[in-house]
Structures are given as structure tokens and as C-alpha cells.
């Protein structure tokens, strides 16, 4: 439903969404740069460069999901879909009864989170208490919407 809208917002900086092995070209590019610049690589490589693998604290969870939904109210149906029953994973136990995997409804790796996050990232990471409050508030609001 949202393919065209996501494509307009993410292009040309996102390659891996909705494409099998879409990010693999980055791995090849990385291999080529390793061979070109690092010691221990094939002859002809130089030794004056270093790779830094940056890692950010979990920006997506730090951002207020209420603000995300206010900014992108048209995405609320998708949030609903991903955070509630449609995302439950069922399995059959040995006694032939069925159960769900606990805690699997919340998708911290939600692929569409980055771009709403960019609009409402807080200046400082929230404390664990603030984060829990924000999540509870968000879930409560979602429950009302549902």
C-alpha cells in the first residue's frame, strides 16, 4: 500500500528494502576497499587508512513513538498491524495445544522506523523510566485506536 510513498522518501539512500539481498552490493564494496587499503590484503594495498564501524545507541527506541505517529498519522494502521495480534507467532506444543511466543509483538527492528525517528529524535536519550512511560502511553493510545 505504501510502496510508492516509502520509495519517494527513502530513495536513493536505502537499497535493501523489499529486495532480496539488496544490501549485498555494500559487502562487495567493503571487500574491495579492504583489499585496497588494509595491510595483510593482496600486494599493492596501502597501509594508511582505517575502517571505523560506528554504532549508535538505540536511536529508534529512544525516540517518542507518540511523536512518530503524530508526524506520520497515515502510518498508524501499519503500527497497529505490527504491534498487535497480526504479528503474533503461534506454535504447536508437544501436547498438541497451541501457544504464542511471548514478547514477540513489539518489533524494535521495525524497518520503517528510521525516517519518522529523524523528525522527532530527542536531544538527549531518555532515562529508562521515561522510556517505559513513553512506551506505556503509546500502547495505551494504540489500544484506544484499536
Amino acid at each position, binding site marked *: 500500500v505504501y510502496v510508492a510513498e516509502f520509495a519517494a522518501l527513502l530513495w536513493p539512500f536505502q537499497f535493501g528494502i523489499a529486495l532480496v*539481498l539488496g544490501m549485498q552490493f555494500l559487502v562487495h564494496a567493503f571487500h574491495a576497499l579492504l583489499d585496497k587499503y588494509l595491510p595483510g590484503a593482496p600486494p599493492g594495498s596501502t597501509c594508511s587508512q582505517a*575502517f571505523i*564501524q560506528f554504532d549508535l545507541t538505540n536511536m529508534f527506541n529512544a525516540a517518542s513513538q507518540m511523536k512518530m505517529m503524530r508526524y506520520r498519522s497515515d502510518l498508524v494502521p501499519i503500527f497497529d498491524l505490527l504491534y498487535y495480534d497480526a504479528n503474533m507467532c503461534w506454535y*504447536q506444543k508437544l501436547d498438541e495445544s497451541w501457544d504464542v511466543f511471548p514478547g514477540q509483538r513489539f518489533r524494535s527492528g521495525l524497518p520503517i522506523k528510521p525516517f519518522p525517528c529523524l523528525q522527532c529524535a530527542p536531544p538527549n536519550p531518555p532515562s529508562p523510566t521515561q522510556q517505559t512511560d513513553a512506551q506505556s502511553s503509546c500502547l495505551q493510545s494504540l489500544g484506544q485506536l484499536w
Partner: protein
Amino acid sequence: MMARDLSLPAWGHTWMVLFPYVNAGFAIHNFQELGAPHGLHLNLDKTKKLTTLDPEVPAADPDLLQVLELIKQANCLTCGTTYLGSPSSCHSYVSEQLDSAADAFDVSCIAIQAQLSDHHTQLTLFTKCLQATVPHLLAADVLLWAPGALHPIDPYQWSSLFVSRLNASTASFLAYITGQPITCFNISLLQWFLAHTPVASGGLSLQDFAAQEVASFVIPLAHSIHFVA
């Protein structure tokens, strides 16, 4: 930022940047300073530095000492790293990572058989979840073994230790799901073909790693050429 050649973004909060030695420390310091007002904070426990692919050939440079002070000693990589799930480095490191992946595949395959009882659920988990954990590693396997492979390579029948182990696990799973004893289960070419045929065509829709391996390497490589040329 002073990324001289190429910045390789990955999933939202992790990415790789190539810096001249002299700029590496400066980049980390400035990222922290400039990113904070926008809610972007570096996780120095997970930020890593890769300067060599051979532990016997360390990259000794005074400018790197500045970086060493900022990140954890354990994150100063000397024999390779895993980027976007694919191991990248010397032969031994990549080989070790692929062995680990094949071990994990075996363990999960046995767990599906031992801990669940419904064959339909088992088959669904095997094809949709377990087999889906492998394709991003196929290109690394090709890159590892292609230089020593016998040419011409058959693009539809790649052979390597990694693929052989995956196929052995798949064959044992097929034996289990069809009620055959694993020890004397000798799968024919026709049975193998049928198991890898799409469900819509009457098969089980298993992935044939030997058939897709070369394509998994060549197609993304073609996409990447203009980034590294």
C-alpha cells in the same frame, strides 16, 4: 566528516567509514559533539576499528593511538569483521565464520525436529525461517573458494564444504519429514528436484543453495562495480 573514499551505510544505526589514520580520532570526537543535539549518540562499547587483516602486520601509527583511547581494546579488530552479516577478511576468519554458521544451521535443524511435532509447522519453519538465514553468506563462500576452484565453474552446481554441509542437513530433514531412516536415506536426483520445486508447482519449496550460490555473488557484485571502480 572526512570520509575520504567511501562511507558504507548499513542498517540504521551501524555503518562503516574509511578514514585516513590522521582523521579517525577527529571523526569520532566530532560525531559525538555534532550528533548529540540531534539525539545521535555513539555507542563506544560497540564502535569498532579495523586497521589490518593480518595480526602479524599491525598498523602502527601515532594517530591511531588517539582512536585507541576512545574505543574498547576488544573492539580493535585485527583479523576481520562481520559486516551486514557477511564475514569479511582473510581466508581463515571467513572459513571459521562459515563453519560456525553451518553448525548453527545443524543445531536449529535438529531443534525443529526434536521440539515440535507437527510436520507442517516444522516444514514451514525450516523453509521460511531456517533456510532464510543462509543466503547472505553464499557470496562469502564463493569469494572464499572461487580463486582455487576448478574452471569452468558450473553456475548451477556450486560445490564447497559449506554448501555440502547445508545440503546434508537438508537431506536429513527431508528424511525425517518423509518418515525415512536417516542412515539409509539415499535421495535421488528426482526427489531432490521435487523438494526444491515451488509449492505452487507441487514441490516443497526448499531453497537449493548450490544452484543459487553463484548468482548470489555475481548479481550484487555487478551492482557494486560503479561504487568501487
